[in-house]
């Protein structure tokens, strides 16, 4: 005898429910092994800001959209199965959101790639961009950049059996990869290397491992993240040969955000939460937290 329709429907529903629970269980299991730190969330934060400021609006809404990178281990990374991005940039985002009284789980994360950081801010797609966003004069023409909250420099990643390249002076005529269109790639071109652009850092790392290119270049912090994943295969060489000052992007429509970002960063420098954020992310690869950078003044 065939089961009656209602019974079949019930079985299907039950199966779905079981499946859903097991998926949810997987998600939880995935979260357990990520190291997190406690985030201070201010109470009644909305009262602290003046009426009409963007901070007040955000604090009253109780949510904020932050653009971060998803493909840079240690700085901003989100694996295919992760719920939330991990890294130093998201941690800084949590500190800023916390000062508005917004808990980490109420933050909407959005992936920003290098190409869409300015457009996202201009269109109001995101409220803040914290995505290895180097401060430059040209970018400051179209968006606001507060900070820097971290200063790093470009270095080289090579295979550990490579003795030829010991620093930027050895890369003349060598093939060096990075992300297509990035400043790092322009810099090695000026040093006489053959630039090889790829879509993502991970593809570039693969090329180094294969021996298809001689070296990879980008900010030292990102390279350390990759070297830490495969210490037997890869090493970071040479002194930093550029200075990248990571800033926090905000829209020019709300210039008042700059002072708030600087104040919040200053507080986080003083109460140790900035250093803590570094230690649980980039610090994992064994680097000490660097000296706290000096913040730029906010121009009105």
């Amino acid at each position, binding site marked *: 005898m065939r089961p009656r329709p209602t019974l079949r429907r019930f079985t299907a529903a039950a199966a779905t429910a079981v499946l859903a629970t097991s998926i949810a269980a997987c998600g939880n299991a995935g979260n357990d092994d990520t190291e997190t730190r406690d985030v201070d969330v201010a109470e009644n934060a909305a009262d602290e800001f003046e009426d009409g400021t963007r901070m007040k609006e955000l604090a009253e809404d109780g949510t904020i959209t932050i653009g971060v990178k998803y493909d840079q281990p240690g700085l901003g990374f989100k694996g295919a199965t992760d719920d939330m991005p991990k890294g130093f940039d998201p941690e800084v985002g949590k500190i800023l959101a916390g000062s508005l009284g917004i808990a980490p789980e109420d933050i909407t994360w959005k992936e920003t790639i*290098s*190409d869409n950081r*300015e*457009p996202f801010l201009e269109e109001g797609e995101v409220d803040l961009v914290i995505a290895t966003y180097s401060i*430059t004069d*040209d*970018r400051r*023409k*179209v*968006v606001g950049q507060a900070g820097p909250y971290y200063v790093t420099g470009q270095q080289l990643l090579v295979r550990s059996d490579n003795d030829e390249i010991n620093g930027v002076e050895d890369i003349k005529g060598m*093939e060096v*990869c990075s992300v*297509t*269109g*990035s*400043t790092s*790639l*322009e810099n090695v071109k000026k040093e006489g290397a*053959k*630039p*090889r*652009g*790829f*879509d993502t850092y991970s*593809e570039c790392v*693969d*090329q180094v491992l*294969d*021996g*298809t*290119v001689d070296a990879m270049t980008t900010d030292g912090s990102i390279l350390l993240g990759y070297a830490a994943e495969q210490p037997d295969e890869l090493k970071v060489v040479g002194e930093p040969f550029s200075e990248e000052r990571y800033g926090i992007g905000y829209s020019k429509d709300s210039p008042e955000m700059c002072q708030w970002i600087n104040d919040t960063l200053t507080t986080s420098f003083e109460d140790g939460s900035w250093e803590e954020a570094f230690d649980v992310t980039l610090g994992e690869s064994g680097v000490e937290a660097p000296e706290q950078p000096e913040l730029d003044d906010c121009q009105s």
Partner: protein
Amino acid sequence: MEAVFSNFDEYLKAFGVTLALFVVSGLASLVLGLILASLRVGPVSVMRRAAGLYVTIFRNTPLLMIFVFMAAAMPKLGYNFKWVENIEIAGWSVSAFFVRSTIALTLYTSAFVCEAFRSGVNSVDVGQAEAARAVGLTFFQSMRYVVLPQALRAVVPPLTSVQVALIKNTSVAAAFGMAEATATMRSLTNDYGSQRPEIFLLFAIGYIIIVEAVALSSYALERKWKVA
């Protein structure tokens, strides 16, 4: 605007790479496509099937995947084409990246070229081929002297479309180590975020000029080969 004009040598160099990718893989795909088409309409059934299989595989695979295969999988299998960098002809040598990109573009485009040629061959009345065989020409002779000259006329417009698509497909190489037009555009928009629209526009114009040059020469060919 001045972002591009103050870097105009970069702009020209970038489109030079785009053109080089197009010309080399364009010619290679015409040759390979013609061979494949001849096999597909030829008398040997194994070859017919092999050519059909080739078209099925490469026409149905996204170009990006062929690039990923050439850039990521082939080096792991031991083929990184580094040896071409040791070959020097009159002071010129090409990089392994250029070779891998042109191979990917050629593999992909020749499937379309093959089908364009096949449609041309099909447009020639079957009586022509039968007559050629009747006067004692072999398959290759009848293709060479009777069928292909007539087919060529019919394939100019579809072949042009295939080659135009190839010009624009070279931009996929931007993410695989080639500093061609699209890659250079991205490095300019990274440096000069405030001039984004102008940069886009000027690079689009570059592509339009190249495509238009190809299209115009194809119209010229059509007129020249036209029979009353």
